[in-house]
């Protein structure tokens, strides 16, 4: 018993907190660097398919997304299948060529990630692919989730 009392008698048993702001700042900088703030608001429904043999895309900066799916009309109503790039729906297929060509000039190693709704048909996907070929953006990626 006396042992414990001796220990208690000694003063200053605090954790030093002077380095805490430094640690917090370090974490803060890490998250600031990794964060990608710009997220688009989807105007089409994209429910991804699942697959087994998939790969990760490490360099998120190289990726440009292209969404294909039925247009969301509000509630549970869906319209025709449409293509969306960034925040806008694409009315005419030939626009894709120009948009993607501009993006390719900015980022020569561009990877176009196609996020296609699972209930789509290949017709529109083929059309998009033809446009991408014309634009010269040949690296593509069919976005899929891992099979559970």
């Amino acid at each position: 018993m006396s042992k414990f009392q001796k220990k208690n008698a000694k003063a200053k048993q605090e954790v030093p907190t002077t380095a805490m702001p430094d640690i917090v700042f370090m974490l803060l900088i890490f998250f600031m660097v990794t964060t990608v703030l710009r997220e688009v608001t989807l105007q089409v429904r994209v429910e991804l398919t699942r697959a087994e043999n998939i790969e990760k895309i490490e360099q998120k900066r190289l990726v440009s997304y292209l969404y294909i799916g039925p247009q969301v009309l509000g509630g549970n109503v869906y319209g025709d299948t449409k293509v969306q790039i960034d925040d806008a729906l694409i009315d005419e297929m030939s626009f894709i060529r120009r948009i993607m060509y501009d993006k390719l000039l900015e980022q020569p190693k561009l990877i176009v990630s196609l996020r296609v709704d699972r209930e789509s048909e290949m017709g529109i996907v083929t059309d998009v692919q033809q446009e991408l070929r014309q634009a010269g953006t040949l690296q593509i990626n069919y976005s899929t989730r891992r099979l559970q």
Partner: protein
Amino acid sequence: MFKKKKGRAGAEIPSSSLADIAFLLLVFFLVVTTIDVDTGIGLVLPPPPDESEPPPPIRERNLLKVLVNSQGLILINERPAAVTEVRERVANFVDNANRANDENLSVSPQAAIVSIKTDRQTPYEIYIRMLDEVRGAYKELRDAESMRRFGVNYDRYRASLASPSDDEVRRIYPMNVSIAEPDPGSN
């Protein structure tokens, strides 16, 4: 002048709330950050067709034609096949030299080309499942080759490489998947 300044006490910016501010920012970025990486099936499209230059000749036996028709049925070299069959068929076709040595299958894994064609009404999901199986076949072959030569599976072998161009397994089994030109009149 200097003496006077020294004499004045407590002329510091109060920094006790610095940690609080930093924490607040930290929490904001923690909440906003999405760590999930994009996963998917990578593919390289063929460059646009050049009218002045005819496509390079390919021997018929080096080409495995996979068609997914509008009903979502898979035809390999014009014969119907189940999705579950695709992996086996592709593996046999690509690795013919080490397996069956069939006259009608590819000369070597390097020469083998899997050509994929779809109709406009083909369901996307079935197309992806088929593509997944084709990739699965290549993964099997690469894993086996990597195990045989280096004693680790392909993913671990690739992680150990200094640069991706040193990949010998990939040189033996390059994935030649080509998207066929769509029919001009089909709608």
